[in-house]
């Protein structure tokens, strides 16, 4: 049984088949990339996995359990976290609060309990502080100290991307879905991002599924790649196999895709 597996998944919008009878498998602790031209259906796959979209058919098996029909919050508690292509941050909150929200599921204080928050000995305060320490570790890890107390809407784009990554990491997921984490970043920021994604897998042992347009990055980081077009798979394999595949190259209009 694969760690994560998609069977015969289809999702359409009106007449448009965004994902069309798709199959793939991801092994534990793998960095697995999904590539394809604009509109190929990559983000739609993520939206199906995390329960935002209801596919018409197919199975999504995570550690052997079918996720179809579960709500996004249930999928998060099953151990799957994600980031969004077009940032979905809590804009009017600070970096700290955004990442603290990633701890929501592991915190348990009830409405009655949180009323005692201002007392140091209260259960709610103890819980809050315990998770706060965890969040400070993430802030350290992603070097977000200077952004900690700022409202995220005031942060530069690259930092906002990191806050979103930090928030997903705070869930301590088993599977992390990253939708174009390097889009819009500077060269330097992108190199840091590669470094962090590798660390996330190597140090934290988290399995990563990555959607990315930057082929250099994909080549450098992925264990295996799935290329899709029109919601259908073109091929799956190692970076060399996939990026050199004639149909993949054709899908990208014959461009030298390592330069895309």
């Amino acid at each position, binding site marked *: 049984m694969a760690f994560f597996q998609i069977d015969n998944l289809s999702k359409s919008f009106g007449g448009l088949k965004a994902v069309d009878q798709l199959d793939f498998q991801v092994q534990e602790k793998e960095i697995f990339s999904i590539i394809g031209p604009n509109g190929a259906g990559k983000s739609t796959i993520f939206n199906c996995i*995390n*329960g*935002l979209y209801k596919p018409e058919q197919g199975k999504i098996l995570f550690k052997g359990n079918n996720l179809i029909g579960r*709500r*996004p*919050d249930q999928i*998060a*508690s099953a151990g799957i*976290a*994600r980031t*969004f292509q077009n940032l*979905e*941050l*809590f*804009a*009017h*909150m600070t970096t700290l*609060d955004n990442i*603290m*929200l*990633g*701890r*929501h*599921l592991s*915190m348990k*204080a009830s*409405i009655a309990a*949180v*009323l*005692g*928050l*201002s007392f*140091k000995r209260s259960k*709610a*305060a103890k819980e*809050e*502080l315990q998770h*706060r*320490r965890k969040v*400070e570790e993430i*802030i*350290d890890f992603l070097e977000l*100290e200077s952004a*900690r107390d700022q409202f995220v809407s005031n942060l530069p784009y690259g930092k906002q991307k990191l806050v979103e990554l930090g*928030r*997903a990491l705070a*869930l301590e997921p088993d599977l992390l879905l990253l939708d174009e984490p390097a889009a819009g970043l500077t060269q330097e920021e992108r190199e840091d991002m590669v470094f962090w994604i590798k660390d996330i897998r190597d140090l934290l042992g988290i399995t990563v599924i990555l959607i990315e347009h930057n082929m250099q990055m994909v080549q450098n980081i992925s264990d295996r790649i799935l290329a899709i077009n029109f919601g259908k798979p073109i091929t799956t394999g190692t970076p060399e196999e996939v990026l050199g595949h004639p149909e993949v190259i054709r899908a990208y209009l014959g461009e030298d895709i390592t330069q895309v």
Partner: protein
Amino acid sequence: MRNLKTDYFEDLQLFKDGLQLFWSAVLLLLLFALPFFVKTYYLTIINLMAVNVVVALGLNLLVGNTGQISLGHAGFVAIGAYTTVLLLKAGVPFIFALTASGLVTGLFGVLLGIPSLKLEGPYLAIATLAFGLAVTTVIGRMDFLGGRMGMNVPKISLGWTGLKYDQSLYYVIIIITILAVIATRNLLKSRIGRAFQAIRDSDIAASAIGINLTKYKLYSFGISAFFAGIAGSLWALYLGFINPTLFSFILSINFLVIIVLGGLGSITGSVMGAIVLTYLNLQLEDVVEIPILGDALLRFSELFMTATGVSNVSWFLTGFILILVVLFEPLGLYGLWLRTKIYWKRWPF
């Protein structure tokens, strides 16, 4: 650079520093000494301000922090008020009547929250508006609730304090208001308050990090209504008499004006908005007594601003002030307060 602050509890404690503690203590002392210095009339005004603070705290939680809307909060206040009166008449001690009013109203809040799961924006606004109107209509038809004539509110036994009734009542209201402020503050700093704000800023992301949208939206409606119920209970007490017309649609709007004027999503804003608007509502009534200008406003109001021919000068002046706030200081009085603070910190540079 590693984080030097190791005692994160500093971010949770009620008072940031000694200075804040000092000023809070001064304010508290002042509030508690007041009944010995001022006339009952002024205590009544402070009572009204305090009750509005409690409603505003709850409404702001729903609107400012969770991003939902309610045009029917007067309905919740009514439910709280009538529950208290019924229970007091049945001989239930006040403290239980108060708690029950909060809980019963909270339950109605959860029920009204159910459509919010499907409805958004203007549709939710209409649903809550209909709720507010329905509450007073139904009460007006119930004989055991006094119908449209209303009911007297039994006095509660506060003789043991050794103070005059009005004074004791003032203390009851002030203490509960302070507790409400602290409760709101702790709630907002907690995982639950954060979840509310997450829903407001991005419901997609909120659900993706594990927040059950249904549950937390209903929590927000329930808690918001709970506060309105408590406020209604207190309001009934110090008015001594209630009838359905007190809880009109205009009152619901008034509550919204308070939080917009004060500052959406801010506790300081709720408090300042309630105090200032309560005061304005009283003062604006007197604007018509100003020579010439007062007459002009009165004529203007009677000719153009009302369908019934009754003048409503104070209302359109409030509306005018609100428009100015939205245009020039969207964070409301709270925003003004922040700027003043920053200004004085920098002064005299």
